[in-house]
């Protein structure tokens, strides 16, 4: 009895001491910001140094921030409808949301990727994956608008995507969930027998950016997670982390965590290209959508019905498995292209593979058996080194170009800085809390810009004012110019930020479009001058060719509309001036407003349900007489 009491007392004292230590640590942090305010202060009217593009996660959007200020500039809707912009509601943009499952107004957007040339950011396009219904989208960085989406067939979830090859030759996709391929009605417990995975290469046209699913590699049925392409010496390869080599179909939390090692799949995409060119691929029937804004800035949907498949088992040298501890997540290639860093979610170390050792191991046939027909390269033969005791739950690694790797630690909620080559940990900094991805501007390219690392956190708890049960996710800006990392700034993010990318503003700023030249507007329903404004009836369909210019609509009195009509408002913004969009909204419309950029045409459908006189107006404060920018529609029964 006495012993127990003593234990309790000692325990209580211990707890008090712990609280004291934590309290002191927090106090230190609060008082220790030094020159941080000056480092993140971007004076009014001045510009940031970097554009940062952050995934919105389950918001299906991309948000655009400035670094180092952490100021939000824009939210780009990608997979999610956005009534504010009319995105996914206007007739022009609706096709971008089409899939073989019909119109899907949402997805889970994870990994933004800036286009690259020779392994360096070129500021042309931003790609991002849709995880839930496998898709990849492309955003044009002159307009910051989504201009293309492509559905990925034969995939059960597109997580390891859209990681680019060094010249944006391809964006990749890999199935997070293996499923029967092609799909069929089988017992879920027949996983090992029936489930397969695919790794897809989508060719990107170097001039237009247009995507085209070039081929898919059929691979054993496990979960493919994240990817990076090789560069420099490893150019021509890409690497995909995987888990569930147990091929469990239930209770994955436990059952997929049994094996000591899972795999990184190394894919020789140059060889795949050759095999396809030699006609070694098989044409499989498929059903997927390719949607894009055409030359007239009108969305088009194409249904595709075939895909070229390469079965990995049938082509020696195409795919190898590199054993990697504990359900690896991140799979990051260093700037030199020699090292592949894996983040084993449950591992107590960070294994780093060597590409040159991998090549030698293949030459010397140092294999450790096969997994479902794919050769497994010996772990020891490929391993360059291990970062020992880095912390708990390593996930992702980015590089500063100065010979250091920075790895996010989900469980111990910190970033760990370590040296490439010696694998020693040199610094660590806490994150608040539970960091997922991290991002250094250009940190995945041949020549990182360095300067900052951004922590992208899943949980914020007490970091901000509470907003009910759902709290903001957050980013944290950390200075990496010195030997010690220094926290500079916390800022909230849109949705859940997964990955992010950043580049110097010079790559994008001066190419940013100010308006669409009206003479280049080839929308079939566009009008080039106010005099062309008119109403045309075709049976029960009515086309209103409408113009907007400060500060009026033409026409602004519309009569002859009947209950039951389908009224298409084709609104052309005749402005040719910077930052003068006009809005268009109709009383009682069941969809959204339109926000029409200068020189652009956008169309919204309205179906009047009762007789009367219905007002419409401009929603975007456009001039001193914005309030006067309105009109009426007479609806007769």
């Amino acid at each position: 009895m006495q012993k127990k009491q003593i234990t309790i007392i000692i325990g209580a004292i211990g707890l008090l001491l712990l609280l004291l230590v934590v309290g002191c640590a927090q106090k230190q942090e609060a008082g220790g910001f030094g020159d941080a305010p000056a480092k993140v202060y971007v004076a009014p009217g001045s510009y940031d140094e970097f554009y940062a593009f952050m995934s919105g996660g389950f918001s299906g959007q991309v948000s655009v921030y400035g670094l180092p200020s952490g100021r939000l500039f824009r939210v780009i809707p990608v997979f999610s409808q956005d009534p504010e912009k009319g995105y996914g509601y206007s007739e022009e943009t609706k096709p971008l949301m089409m899939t073989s499952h019909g119109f899907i107004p949402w997805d889970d957007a994870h990994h933004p990727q800036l286009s690259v040339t020779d392994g360096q950011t070129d500021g042309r396009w931003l790609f991002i994956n849709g995880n839930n219904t496998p898709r990849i989208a492309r955003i044009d960085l002159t307009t910051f608008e989504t201009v293309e989406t492509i559905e990925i067939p034969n995939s059960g979830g597109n997580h390891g995507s859209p990681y680019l090859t060094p010249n944006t030759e391809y964006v990749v996709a890999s199935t997070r969930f293996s499923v029967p391929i092609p799909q069929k009605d089988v017992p879920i417990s027949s996983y090992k027998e029936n489930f397969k995975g695919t790794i897809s290469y989508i060719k990107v046209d170097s001039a237009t950016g247009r995507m085209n699913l070039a081929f898919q590699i059929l691979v054993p049925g496990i979960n493919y997670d994240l990817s990076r392409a090789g560069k420099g010496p490893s150019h021509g390869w890409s690497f995909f982390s995987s888990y569930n080599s147990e091929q469990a179909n239930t209770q994955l939390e436990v059952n997929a965590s049994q094996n000591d090692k899972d795999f990184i799949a190394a894919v020789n995409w140059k060889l795949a290209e050759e095999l396809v060119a030699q006609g070694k691929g098989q044409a499989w029937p498929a059903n997927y959508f390719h949607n894009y804004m055409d030359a007239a800035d009108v969305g088009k949907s194409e249904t595709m019905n075939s895909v070229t498949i390469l079965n990995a088992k049938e082509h020696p040298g195409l795919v190898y498995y590199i054993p990697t501890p504990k359900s690896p997540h991140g799979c990051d290639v260093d700037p030199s292209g020699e090292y592949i860093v894996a983040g084993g979610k449950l591992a107590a170390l960070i294994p780093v593979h060597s590409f040159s050792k991998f090549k030698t191991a293949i030459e010397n046939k140092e294999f450790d058996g096969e997994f479902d027909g794919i050769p497994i390269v010996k772990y020891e033969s490929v391993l360059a080194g291990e970062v020992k005791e880095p912390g708990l739950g390593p996930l992702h690694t980015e590089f500063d170009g100065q010979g250091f790797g920075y790895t996010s630690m989900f469980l111990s909620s910190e970033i760990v800085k370590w040296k490439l080559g010696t694998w020693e940990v040199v610094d660590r900094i806490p994150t608040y809390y539970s960091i997922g991805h991290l991002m250094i501007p250009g940190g995945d390219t041949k020549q990182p810009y360095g300067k900052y690392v951004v922590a992208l956190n899943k949980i914020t708890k007490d970091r901000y004012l509470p907003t009910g049960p759902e709290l903001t996710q957050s980013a944290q800006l950390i200075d990496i110019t010195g030997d010690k990392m220094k926290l500079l700034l916390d800022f909230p993010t849109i949705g859940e930020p997964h990955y992010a990318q950043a580049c110097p503003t010079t790559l994008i700023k001066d190419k940013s479009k100010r308006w669409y030249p009206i003479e280049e507007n080839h929308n079939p329903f566009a009008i080039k001058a106010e005099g062309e404004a008119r109403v045309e009836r075709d049976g029960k369909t009515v086309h209103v060719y409408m113009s907007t210019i400060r500060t009026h609509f033409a026409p602004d009195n519309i009569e002859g509309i009947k209950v039951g009509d389908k009224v298409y408002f084709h609104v052309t913004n005749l402005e040719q001036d910077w930052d003068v969009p006009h809005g268009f909204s109709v009383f009682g419309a069941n969809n959204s407003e339109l926000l029409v950029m200068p020189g652009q045409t956008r169309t919204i459908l309205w179906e009047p349900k009762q007789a009367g006189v219905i007002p419409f107006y401009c929603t975007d404060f456009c001039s001193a007489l914005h309030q006067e920018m309105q009109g009426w529609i007479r609806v007769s029964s």
Partner: protein
Amino acid sequence: MKHDSTNEDPAVQAGSSPQPNRTKRTRQPRVPLSLLSRIVIAAAALMLAFTYFFPLWEITLDAPQYPEGLGLEIWINQMQGQNQGDLNKINNLNHYIGMKQIKPESIKELSIMPWIMRAVMLLGLVVAATGRRSFLLVWLLVFLLVSGAGLVDFYLWGYDYGHNLDTAHAIIKVPGMSYQPPLIGSKKLLNFKAISLPGIGGWVAIGSFVIGGLVWLMEFRRARKQVIRAT
């Protein structure tokens, strides 16, 4: 300078008259322009070619909403925005005050001015070729006249645009307010500050005239000295 008479130019030959005494008595002797002056005049005339490559005049419109700049350029043969799309923006803004649309194709001066400029250039070259100081004076007077007429025309154009407003359809009506841009200098027009100044082409023309004037002045003084010395 003393070897001017070796020049092959007949005009110069004519200048060095074989009967100096008789001429002297009736009128001052013709002292031809020096070779250097003639070269300078030719250069000044040829310099005017720059007016084909740079705007003669610029009207800049300064307002808080236009940090990117907004303005008009008047060229020898065209009128255009300082930046792409400016003319369109200005016309759109002008509809608020009932100002006429600026349509460069309907401004006839823009088709006449190139010819006038060519004539001025040609005349300058004639001056250089003949080397006659009186011709230089004529050239300068013509130059001045043409420029003056141009500015008057510009003023009248601005007056017309600034005053003849379609008040029936104007959205913004400020009693007593007109919107004539200044001929030169700056003026506040509602939220805009209009700044009117010569463009590069205009400065070149002014420079050409000033050079011509200086040459004439120097030659005038040189000739007077020669005449004094001769008498």
